[in-house]
């Protein structure tokens, strides 16, 4: 009986705790992201490579922002179940959305604080951080790197 409890009860308890704590953290992160996006509203961070002819560029520099976000246990288990039958891993979508927007925000904030007026040629990179579980095939978290060329316009 105690074995059944340990084998099934404990993981379910951890899953529930992970769900409640994870949801709270995710909600607060989204709120924070929205506030900071509001503050940066109007600062161009765009993906084009060639500058419009009428832009007079003063100085340029590379700016980047990266973020590492971990899965919580709940998301991991649900994704594992999803992996049995396939389909959209809906619990991972907000995770990646948060990471992308956070990385872009950090990059943009870095450009703005250095006195630049815009970031062009913005690119996003994703990498998976392995952990030691399952012979290094486990996922500790993901990193999203946003980088681009910051410009000051004269």
């Amino acid at each position, binding site marked *: 009986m105690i*074995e*059944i409890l340990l*084998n099934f009860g404990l993981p379910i308890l951890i899953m529930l705790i992970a*769900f409640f704590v994870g*949801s709270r953290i995710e909600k607060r992160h989204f709120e924070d992201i929205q506030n900071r*996006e*509001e503050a940066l*509203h*109007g*600062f*161009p961070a*765009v993906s084009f490579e060639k500058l*419009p002819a*009428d832009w007079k560029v003063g100085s340029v520099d590379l700016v980047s922002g990266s973020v590492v976000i971990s899965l919580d246990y*709940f*998301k991991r288990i*649900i994704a*594992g*179940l*999803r992996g*049995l*039958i396939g389909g*959209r891993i*809906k*619990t991972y*979508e*907000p995770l*990646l*959305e948060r990471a*992308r*927007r956070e990385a872009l925000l950090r990059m943009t904030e870095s450009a703005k604080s250095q006195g630049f007026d*815009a970031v062009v040629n913005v690119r996003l990179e994703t990498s998976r951080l392995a952990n030691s579980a399952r012979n290094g095939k486990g996922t500790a978290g993901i990193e999203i790197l946003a980088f681009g060329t910051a410009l000051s316009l004269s």
Partner: protein
Amino acid sequence: MKFIPRKPREGINVSDVHPLAEAGALVAGLSIIFTVVAVALFYAVELALLSISVETEVQLFENWAPDDLLSVSADDERKTQAQEILRRLVAHWGDAPYQFRLEIVESDVPNAMAYPGGLIVVTTELLDGVASENELAFVLGHELGHFRNRDHLRMLGRVAVIGLVFVAATGTDGGAALGVRIADIAQRSFSRGQESAADEFGLQVVNAEYGHVDHSWNFFDRLNDGDLRSSKFIAYLSTHPSAADRSDRLKVLAHDQGWPLSGPTIQLNWINISSPADP
């Protein structure tokens, strides 16, 4: 070119599904799939195993024994005597197709098990718990009944299937051992019919050997009444029919068949010897 600042739009990259709803749908759906697969496998394996002829089974499992079978020493007095009792009982099963083997396993749970190929395993706790040869004979006769109805193959198949489903569901080796144990208990709980049929055969063999069925159910009565009441009792019940029901059904059966309910019982030599005889 004109830059028009826009705020990021929400809800494009994130599905509007509550995570718990997603979890619920996945767990419920997968449980249904697993159950259907398990039930289908259950019957498929049972059909496949029962289509194996007794001769083939004996050939395949002639010298086979479970890996974790820790048998007592070969010259243990209890083993020699139990084998002798078994041999006499088998004589009443016309042309028994099996070459029965008997092994004793060290365990503090009173139990007896039937394995493919005619292997009967009894635990030391059972041998120390029975008070007479007649009590032991009925337990052995019950296991012979399982062989006659080929329940041991059904059990093997069911335990294998449930164990497999468990491993697939939990995805860990750790779940496997536990799964097999739960499977063992679960499958026995819906094999009441098999247990009754084995009891009937056991009683019939005992009557043929001793001319009466006295003491056949005394062991279960004691399990029920308290001599042996403990966690062992619970363990025994989890894999066998309730002792009280069982002893009642046996009495009714003996009465219906007109088998004498009382007669001389035979004492076992090793009773009152606290430890197995040392050479």
